[in-house]
């Protein structure tokens, strides 16, 4: 494997995706606007039940979190990142199928992993635009009291979460080769994952028998780690547990994704179903 060749593939994919993203001007604007009502919905769900001061007190006392709106915003942002990366990495093969380019792409000697990683990285570039946009907008609208003690802890947590989520997208990509319903799958998984990962409330408040589902999702650890880093003044040392698990997920999912992708691609080629949709 020549690294310079792989980088060329990754660069080409990133360049194509960024051009496509900016060719739909409305998308660029809407991506930072549409999460706002979802955030507002969750925040007002709390405010509809009790006064904000009292609720803030509860979250400070019970979970060590300095901001109710901050808890919802951090959870939602990581969830949106997961969504973006699942669509941008895993479901990207379905887009190639729609565009009629999947068989041409798979005829080239380009590494499939480089194609997927290129898609993942371009999603991150798009994602960084709206993560900053959404964060600034929601800060202005809802106000967030942050308690960041260690900036390196925050940056490393964000990078680790992104790596784990790209790996999850790569893992799912192999299934999207076989199914014609990648869009359905991705949409269907949104609501359950949003619930089990504890986007709108601390995951410890899930019923006990559902904890095992929450803790097999890398997004859960990403949300927990980022909440601690942004809202509970955690340092790198405090986050070691979550970060180690995120890297473990990243490694395992990339490894499985790589082999599954080869198996599924061969199966689709043998069935002659690669192109069909």
């Amino acid at each position, binding site marked *: 494997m020549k690294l310079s060749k792989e980088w060329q593939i990754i660069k080409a994919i990133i360049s194509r995706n960024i051009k496509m993203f900016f060719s739909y001007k409305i998308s660029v604007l809407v991506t930072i606007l549409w999460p706002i009502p979802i955030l507002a919905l969750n925040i007002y769900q709390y405010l509809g039940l009790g006064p904000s001061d009292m609720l803030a007190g509860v979250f400070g006392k019970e979970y060590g979190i300095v901001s109710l709106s901050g808890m919802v915003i951090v959870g939602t942002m990581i969830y949106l990142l997961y969504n973006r990366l699942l669509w941008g990495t895993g479901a990207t093969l379905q887009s190639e199928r729609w565009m009629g380019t999947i068989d041409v792409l798979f005829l080239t000697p380009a590494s499939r992993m480089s194609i997927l990683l290129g898609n993942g990285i371009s999603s991150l570039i798009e994602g960084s635009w709206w993560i900053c946009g959404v964060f600034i907008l929601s800060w202005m609208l809802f106000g967030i009291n942050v308690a960041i003690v260690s900036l390196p802890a925050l940056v490393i947590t964000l990078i680790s979460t992104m790596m784990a989520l790209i790996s999850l997208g790569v893992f799912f990509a192999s299934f999207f080769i076989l199914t*014609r319903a990648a869009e359905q*799958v991705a949409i269907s998984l949104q609501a359950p994952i949003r619930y089990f990962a504890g986007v709108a409330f601390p995951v410890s408040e899930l019923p006990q028998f559902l904890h095992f589902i929450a803790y097999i999702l890398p997004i859960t650890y990403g949300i927990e780690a980022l909440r601690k880093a942004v809202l509970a003044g955690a340092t790198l040392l405090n986050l070691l547990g979550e970060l180690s698990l995120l890297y473990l997920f990243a490694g395992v999912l990339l490894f499985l994704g790589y082999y599954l992708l080869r198996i599924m691609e061969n199966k689709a080629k043998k069935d002659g179903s690669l192109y069909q949709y």
Partner: protein
Amino acid sequence: MSYIVKTFGATFKYALKNSLRYLSAGWFIGINILGPIFFLLTSWNIYEIVRRYAGLEWKYAEFSNYVAFATVGFAFLGPILSASWSGAEGIRSEQQDGTLELIFITPSNKIAWLIGKMMAAQIFSLISLATTLITGSIFFGLDLLSKVNVPMAILGTTLTIVGMSSFSFALAGLTFIIKRTDDLNQFLWPTMTFLCGLTYPVEVLPLGAQVISWVFPLTHGVNITRRAILLGSGLFDPIIAVATVTILVQILIFIPIGLFLFTKFYNVARKTGALFTY
């Protein structure tokens, strides 16, 4: 007239089959239908946190069971999604399949064609609505047996879907011009969910947001259906009567506007040659 009905029927069947072909991934469709239940569970968790740690019991007007209140609201998630999105999605999918131009060359009635697509999408959303209500009834104390005013609940739901369809017509027309209305819809449905009092009374919102919420037929439709289901109220309930009149007036105003915009954008796309491009 029979030609219009045939166009509607054919499109309805086509759109339904198109959805059903994903039955090979049947359990995913199941999760889709169950989607609102996860929103409901989120509400339950949030309520439990507030109740347990802040010691607050929820009460609003005649309603005292928060999760039952939210259940009726979340039951509407499927219909709102379909009502606001299905028209645009119908146009967009034909654009992507490269068949839009062919369909629009035929002398078929385009409105009947669009309604056929929208109605097929509503089938799944109505199943989702029923599933959410039944779940609320089994797990969260929503009483569906003793009090419910069924005809009023059906009327409330129907009026909501019809009222919201005006947005679907407008968005479908807009898809001819700006293509990516899926992004716009991503913004529209959470906005409606936030504004229209699905999980909390509209009065909780800031005044400006309350005023905007009254523009959406959904606010009044949820109000009607919620009172019919939770309190068993009918048309003689003044709140329901006002909401019904409001939503009827909105339908009379919004549907022609929606149809006008659809036709307008369609004609613009034809003139600028943008019908086929995506």
